[in-house]
């Protein structure tokens, strides 16, 4: 029992009971030992719905402590409803400091983005994963895909990407773009835009991926090679925009597109709200 239990009745620190945390911690260590391999774990029912980040929340709950500073983003932004909801949950059950600043955070839980600000050693990036199996849309059966991973038999993925080239002249996959981890396992990077894939490669931060409904945890240790799948004559490339961010002028960041009037006028702004604010801060201070 901690002092927190007075606030929320019978719940343990960070919500999960200690036995569950140990189970998740063991799964995380095995995930780190076999980069890109999906470790099955006894995922618990969380007080938030499946599909809304229960895997990421369980991973965060198993690692977080009172010394941590937590950042939560959804679509790159700290103030989207689900990010707010998850941040409130941890502030309440884990008495943890929260921040919106990427470089201040020790643990960053994310849905669909990797922050624009480069991560550093010691930081942990926790991804919320809906479908952890990169081959799932090509082969719906878990029994089959498990065998394909065991045999490192990834022809089905190559064929799928090749068909895309044959049909469209290029690989049309835009997000959740499959990667090869350390030359052994094909991995789903979660539904981040392919724009973010290069940030996963040899990142100094530890990447942990949690899929609650599918009950899988996987990891990419720091400095591990993460290669986006491609072909020699069709190399991997990321999205680009003709526009720059309307607010901060960035030409390097991933942009959200907004429709601002009935005539369909478009406006482009950074998806990473912290990055955008920090770039604007000096200019606004000078005004």
């Amino acid at each position: 029992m901690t002092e927190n239990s007075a606030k929320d009745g019978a719940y343990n620190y960070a919500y999960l009971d200690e036995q569950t945390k140990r189970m998740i911690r063991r799964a995380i260590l095995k995930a780190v030992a076999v980069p890109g391999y999906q470790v099955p774990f006894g995922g618990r029912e969380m007080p938030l719905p499946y599909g809304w980040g229960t895997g990421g929340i369980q991973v965060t709950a198993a690692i977080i402590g009172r010394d941590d500073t937590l950042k939560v983003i959804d679509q790159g932004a700290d103030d989207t409803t689900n990010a707010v909801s998850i941040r409130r949950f941890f502030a309440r059950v884990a008495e943890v400091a929260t921040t919106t600043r990427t470089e201040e955070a020790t643990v960053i839980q994310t849905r669909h983005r990797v922050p624009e600000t480069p991560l550093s050693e010691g930081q942990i990036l926790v991804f919320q994963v809906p479908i952890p199996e990169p081959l799932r849309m090509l082969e719906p059966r878990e029994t089959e895909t498990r065998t394909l991973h065991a045999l490192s038999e990834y022809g089905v993925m190559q064929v799928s990407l090749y068909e895309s080239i044959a049909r469209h002249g290029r690989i049309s996959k835009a997000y959740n773009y499959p990667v090869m981890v350390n030359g052994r396992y094909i991995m789903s990077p979660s539904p981040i835009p392919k724009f973010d894939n290069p940030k996963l490669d040899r990142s100094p931060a530890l990447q942990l991926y949690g899929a609650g409904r599918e009950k899988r945890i996987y990891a990419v240790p720091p400095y591990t090679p993460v290669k986006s799948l491609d072909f020699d004559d069709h190399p991997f490339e990321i999205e680009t925009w003709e526009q720059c961010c309307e607010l901060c002028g960035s030409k390097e960041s991933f942009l959200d597109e907004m429709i601002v009037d009935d005539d369909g006028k478009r406006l482009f702004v950074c998806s990473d709200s912290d990055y955008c604010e920090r770039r604007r801060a000096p200019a606004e201070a000078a005004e």
Partner: protein
Amino acid sequence: MYVAVKGGETAIAHSLDLVADKRRGDRDIAELSLEQIDQQLGLAVDRVMTEGSCYDRSLAALAIKQARGDLIEAIFLLRAYRTTLPRFGDSLPLDTSAMVAERRISSTFKDVPGGQVLGPTYDYTHRLLDFSLMAADERPTAPTAPADTNRTLPRVGDILEREGMLEPPPQDGASEDLTRQPLTLPASRPVRLQNLARGDEGFLLALGYSTQRGYGNNHPFVGEIRYGHVPVSFVPEELGFAIEIAEIDVTECDMVNQFAGSHDVPPQFTRGYGLAFGHSERKAMSMALVDRALRAEELSESATSPAQDEEFVLAHSDNVEASGFVQHLKLPHYVDFQSELVVVRTLRAEVEARRRQAVLDQAAE
């Protein structure tokens, strides 16, 4: 600027207030008590306990009240509470032959030891709206025969089994707990049954129904359905012997299915089994049909239908998982959508450029 899903902190706070307000409804109408839900919406409580995997009538009633009658939401609430409870161990298997039955029917024999007991059932009600219920009314207590609690109620299946007509219960293998360990496939039958017991009633009903329409190879008879109270026993490690810790209501269904037999095995009937908390016959029967369908491989039948496909059934039966994942589509996906927009625009531009080039080439010829 369009920031509908941003600035969420205040929006969420207001949304929570609104949902609490909606739940209470018109303040001039008396508030529902948990006792009213338990007593007067008892079948809803039974379903929430069954699929919530937690036998506690008042907690289930609370969940139903909090969820404004949305039973899947109530199941979710009860599950999320259950998962935080400590585990003391496993109870002994229920002995349903010790049931004090309020209802017990067999469709395979006109009479069976212990008799047919129709009990409370909607089966023979005429589905005419009873307008007298629109006003509160005193109802006389229904007459009941005194229950003989000392007498065991032999199962019809056991009687058939003694004769060799029905297979013995399948050898089950080790039981695991799906709520503590991830599902691995192929699953043992106890794991399958646990999955089905927690599974969505509507999903199992549709699958069970499909087996009756030719998608599967079931030829089922209701060997027996019984509903009533059974004692739950537990062996505390420090005592070393069983003590009775509770009495619960369950519905049990033993489905008897035809089996052709083979060269070496004489024809014999096979089993499908269903068990649900409270009075949940539709659920127990559907479960028994699907259980039997999932035994296709074990019984060397060809498995070609959805209800016989273990991975398909077990992976999609859970309504808390399904509801969450379907509804998560409400969350913002605009980063991924933006990625797709960029790709589709690029592809469209390329197609357009090729078309223009073709027109130019044609004009030049």
